[in-house]
């Protein structure tokens, strides 16, 4: 072998070594991300599960110094806040998606989608401050304002995913219906929407999972609440994330334990719903792509 052959051989070896090292770096990066997830969920599991008990869901906070009690008011409050928020965001999100995908001309559609993207990119604390300045100052907090904040956060999520599902509806369905002389609205309501119902539902579930864990927009709108279980949206209602937030900084270790238990419930809810809806979304997408 000549010297140049040897040099070429060592160069190839070096290239292979560099290649191996870089790919090992990719694997390591992925391993780090998975490890962080495992550590975070593991800590919540280890600290949250021992603090779980029936009282957490059925009882309200006790006065300082006593032991026991729970955060039933927060679970009920979260249910009310997120439920009303989703009920407001769902119709607006779906209708705006119909407008963008089916009715508007391109330039108008682009203005709307960009605005919704920017709305989605706004820090959630800014949404909270916005409603604080608009509705809370002078009047005081109430749960309806909190629901409104969650609705503003859910709206772009629902609209965007609905647009994506609508874009997957095969155009022959649309064209076939219109060619038969069926009017536009009947085509949309009777032909297109039914094929996207499961997609829209999963998109909504995903948005609900996101909203259920939002704290920042609730701090300024519905955080000064009492300890009773209530569904009255005219007053500030407790919520699971705000309770975790305040209990996490409480000096009482018993409250810290309750924060961990609530975090466990919240994380299980969020992860299960988002995993399930992601799987369903992928399935309905595949179905539409095949159809």
């Amino acid at each position, binding site marked *: 072998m000549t010297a140049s052959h040897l040099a070429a051989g060592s160069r190839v070896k070096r*290239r292979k070594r*560099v*290649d191996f090292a870089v790919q090992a*770096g*990719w*694997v390591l*990066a*992925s391993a780090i*991300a*998975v490890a*962080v*997830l495992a*550590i975070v969920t593991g*800590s*919540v599991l280890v600290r949250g599960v021992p603090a779980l008990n029936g009282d957490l869901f059925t009882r309200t906070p006790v006065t300082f110094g006593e032991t026991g009690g729970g955060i039933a008011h927060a679970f009920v409050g979260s249910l009310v806040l997120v439920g009303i928020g989703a009920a407001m965001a769902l*119709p*607006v*999100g*779906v*209708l*705006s998606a*119909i*407008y963008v995908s089916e009715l*508007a001309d391109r330039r108008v559609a682009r*203005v*709307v989608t*960009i*605005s*919704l*993207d*920017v*709305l989605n*990119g*706004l*820090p959630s*604390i*800014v949404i909270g*401050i*916005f409603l604080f*300045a*608009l509705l809370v100052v002078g009047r005081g907090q109430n749960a309806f304002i909190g629901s409104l904040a969650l609705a*503003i956060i859910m*709206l772009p999520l629902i609209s965007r995913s609905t647009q994506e599902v609508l874009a997957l509806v095969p155009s022959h369905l649309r064209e076939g219906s219109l060619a038969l002389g069926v*009017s536009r*609205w*009947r085509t949309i*309501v009777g032909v297109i929407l039914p094929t996207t119902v499961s997609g829209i539902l999963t998109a909504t579930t995903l948005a609900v999972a996101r909203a*259920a*864990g939002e704290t920042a927009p609730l701090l300024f709108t519905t*955080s*000064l609440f009492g300890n009773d279980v209530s569904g009255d949206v005219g007053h500030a209602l407790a919520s699971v994330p705000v309770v975790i*937030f305040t209990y*996490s*900084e409480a000096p009482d270790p018993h409250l810290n334990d309750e*924060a961990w238990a609530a*975090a466990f419930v*919240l994380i299980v809810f969020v*992860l299960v719903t*988002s995993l399930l809806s*992601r799987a369903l979304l992928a399935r309905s997408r595949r179905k539409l792509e095949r159809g």
Partner: protein
Amino acid sequence: MDVAASPCAPASRRRLTDRIGDLALHVASAAAAFGGVAVLGLVAYRVAYGAWPAIRTFGISFVWHEAWNPVTSRFGALDFLYGTAVTSFAAVLIAGPLAVAIALFLTELAPPAVRGVIGSLVEMLAAVPSVVLGLWGIFVLGPFVRDHFDPWLHSWFGRMPLFSGTPQQAGMLPAILILAIMIVPITASVARELLEAVPSELKEGAYGLGLTRWEMVRGVVLPYTRGGLVAALLLGMGRAVGEAIAVTQVIGGFAGIPTSLFQPGDTLASRIAAQYQGAVSNLHVASIVYLALILLVFAFLTNVGAQVIVRRFEPGKAG
């Protein structure tokens, strides 16, 4: 008129309901769509309006004035801008390379089964609520940083002022780590979409020339997606800047300019969140809203900037 020409009454009635239905759907959906646009406009207007008393009192110099004193009613944002800049930039510095590496692993290296599992695990990390991450930051990450990470950094880089001082549980460093954890999954999923859009002919051509995988990535994939990757990092940065809750929980809430990452500090968003119960005067409230206005402007710039970059470098138009 065509209605008169039609001999069939049900048909004409149907045409009428169709026309009403079309109009109703059009109006309702347009109202919903422009309602969304209007909300964005209203947010911008109301936040600017709410900040007006502070804008009138302090002017634009609020941005670089260093004070946050409710007693003397003197407010400025410099401390929090500094905290925001340092934490977000450092978080992107940590999370950016990790996110791109994860996206490369998922698109170029992992077999399909692994790709599905790891991909959804990374997305699950994005779904962890920030308040839970903050709780973990207070009780697990904070003590770890104080007892192990800070002393370790100190022993290696102790001469740099950035890594000097007493290790503490709450401070800039835990905030940076929490932010990095939060933006890795988002940046990775945007990057992954971009990488998946690289045409396979280009990749196969590069392999055909005898390049190794890394050489192919460096020569074909990265140049092809460069603009988009910058946009992905920008979006991650925007997310880090706006995160309030988890940062409030771990950063320690301190107005001032910390010279060491071990010291507590504050960011724009975390200062807002920390003040939710305690605004004492109108000017105080307006100053908090002013901080939110700065966040709003920044979020607007990063989002629109990312859109512009993505559009300019849209795959297919590049090269």
